[in-house]
């Protein structure tokens, strides 16, 4: 990508609990992105991810016309021109990638959201779970550790299951000990994993009883990279989930960048 100074450039920064993301857009095109693990200095993380995104786009801070920050770390983002909640940003990002989106399941590092949109990408209703780790990236990280596999391999492994071993607990701590007992009993890891994914999907579907499900259903957040979770959600929600061609983990940051374009375009 070459530098085009005559076209205004906008950035979105999404400081999540486990990862920090940034996306750069201009003239309706995505120019670059950055994704780093979230450390203890929230402000620094945002700036680092932003710099990384700028590097991939071969741009500098001076090229940016407007920055929108989102995610739980948005409250420590003095570099941003404006902050917007991740709920609105995910809606904008999903609508940008797939305008037919009416429902979003966002599963992030430490919370999980159900968002309903109208045809223009406006949020009409939402529900959020952040009282417990079930249905979040953190839960899956703990499970990957129990099975001694990489986080990215959890989903594909679950898809290999021939049977399902029901998991009674979605509490991270109890699910971990329940898994260890199931493994000790000789149950196959893939069957247990399928049970785990289904237990989470069932729990997440509880949020949809409050907001409803309408097609197209869009899956965003880091957990959306997990094919096992996608399959389990499709089964439980009885709805097809559309597969965007863009990294689902970057949807919030992309939405923030789209909003930056909306605000900054007027400045």
């Amino acid at each position, binding site marked *: 990508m070459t530098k085009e100074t005559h076209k205004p450039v906008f950035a979105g920064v999404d400081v999540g609990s486990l990862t920090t993301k940034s996306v750069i857009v201009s003239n309706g095109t995505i120019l670059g992105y950055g994704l780093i693990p979230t450390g203890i200095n929230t402000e620094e993380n945002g700036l680092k991810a932003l710099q990384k995104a700028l590097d991939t786009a071969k741009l500098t801070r001076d090229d940016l016309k407007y920055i929108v920050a989102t995610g*739980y770390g948005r409250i420590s983002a003095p570099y941003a021109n404006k902050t917007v909640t991740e709920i609105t940003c995910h809606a904008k990002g999903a609508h940008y990638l797939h305008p037919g989106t009416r429902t979003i399941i966002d599963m992030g590092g430490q919370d999980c959201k159900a968002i309903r949109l109208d045809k223009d990408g*406006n*949020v009409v209703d*939402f529900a959020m779970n952040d*009282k417990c780790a079930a249905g979040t990236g953190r839960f899956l990280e703990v499970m990957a550790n129990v099975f001694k596999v990489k986080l990215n391999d959890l989903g594909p492994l679950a898809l290999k299951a021939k049977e399902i071993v029901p998991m009674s607990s979605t509490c991270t701590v109890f699910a971990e000990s329940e898994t260890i007992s199931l493994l000790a009993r000789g149950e196959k890891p893939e069957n247990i994993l399928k049970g785990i994914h289904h237990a989470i999907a069932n729990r997440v579907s509880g949020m949809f009883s409050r907001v409803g499900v309408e097609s197209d259903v869009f899956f965003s957040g880091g957990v959306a990279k997990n094919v096992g979770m996608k399959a389990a959600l499709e089964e439980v929600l009885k709805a097809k989930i559309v597969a965007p061609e863009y990294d689902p983990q970057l949807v919030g940051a992309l939405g923030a960048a789209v*909003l930056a374009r*909306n605000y900054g375009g007027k400045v």
Partner: protein
Amino acid sequence: MVLETLKKIEEAVKERPQELAEARKKGAKVVGWLNYNIPEEIIHSLGLIPIRLGTGGDDRLVEIGARYISTKNCVYVRGAVGLFAENKDPYVQNSDLVAVDATCLQIYRVAELIKYYFKVNTLILGVPRNFTSPEGQVYFRKEVEAFTQKLEEFAGNKLDNNTLAESIKLYNSIRKSIKELYNYQAIDKAPLKWREVFDVIHAGFYLDRERYNSLLQELLKELKEKHGIPKIGNLNGDARIFISGSIIPPKDTKLISIIEKVGGRIVGDDLWSGLNPVLNVNIKEPSIKGIADAYINRVPHAALPYLDLETDRRLKNLKQLIKDYQAQGVIYHTLRYCDPFTFKAGETKDVLKKEGVPLLEIHTEYAGSDVEAIRTRAEAFVELIKNKNNLEIEA
């Protein structure tokens, strides 16, 4: 610009504990009360001093209360037990009798506990579940009659219908004034915030009722002189939010502060610690029957079952208030284990959806661990409303 009378009310509340203690030294008796359906007019007309008890927002008191009551009771109830266990709240300290009605049954349980553990002198007023049926109404009249008899014994005084008529007149004036105040807070460029009116209502839990009424008249006079007759309209684009659901008692500022911080403007409520108790009180005759019928026909507390959505007075009232104050969305506050309001969240949301009014449920407790999570929800809700107003975010 701060209204002079608001400062005066604040000062009066500060002085009230001392005033009460002195009145008691001179022989006056204080009736503290909890819950929703205690008819203050009767307490007042017997020459007793009514004080509405209960505070919120303090997790320390909840912990203390939880030593005596199950943790599966809501934090307000646990905190109320904590108030009696600790016995430092000046109004609890100065109550010679604690009256509790059986509307919310968790609070009714508080009466049993404080009597058992802390030897508090309590008086119970039964409340019918079948409050819309003639049998329920008869039951409540008899309950108010028995309640009055016990109060008479306590006061050493008989209820007199002429004195009762005077008390009713005073309380009607208070109720009318509070409704007028609500109109001022809801106008464009309002001279006082909803939160200030909410504080004025809470001042009325404590102050001498004649003094309170005269302060309300003074406040309304000040408002009229400076700002004329309130007219709700010409909205300037604020995200106008209505608060409903579980009790938000004095000192519980958690949700209110978050809503204000994320740019929401509260313009009304149907809380039973807010506007609701003053609505639809039509006392047809100065008698026990007149009082009982009026109280049971008010907007009901959610603890009373009402299964027909079409005629549910609580929902009808909510819809009307949303229109009156031109609110654009409802934040429905539910305390964990406050079953009456939590169970009704879903149906309330569905009913309002048909009216085109979005509802966000915030389920919380007094601990601060969920402040950020609530902030994100409340902020997203404000964004949703502002977006609807086409103010800031455009697709």
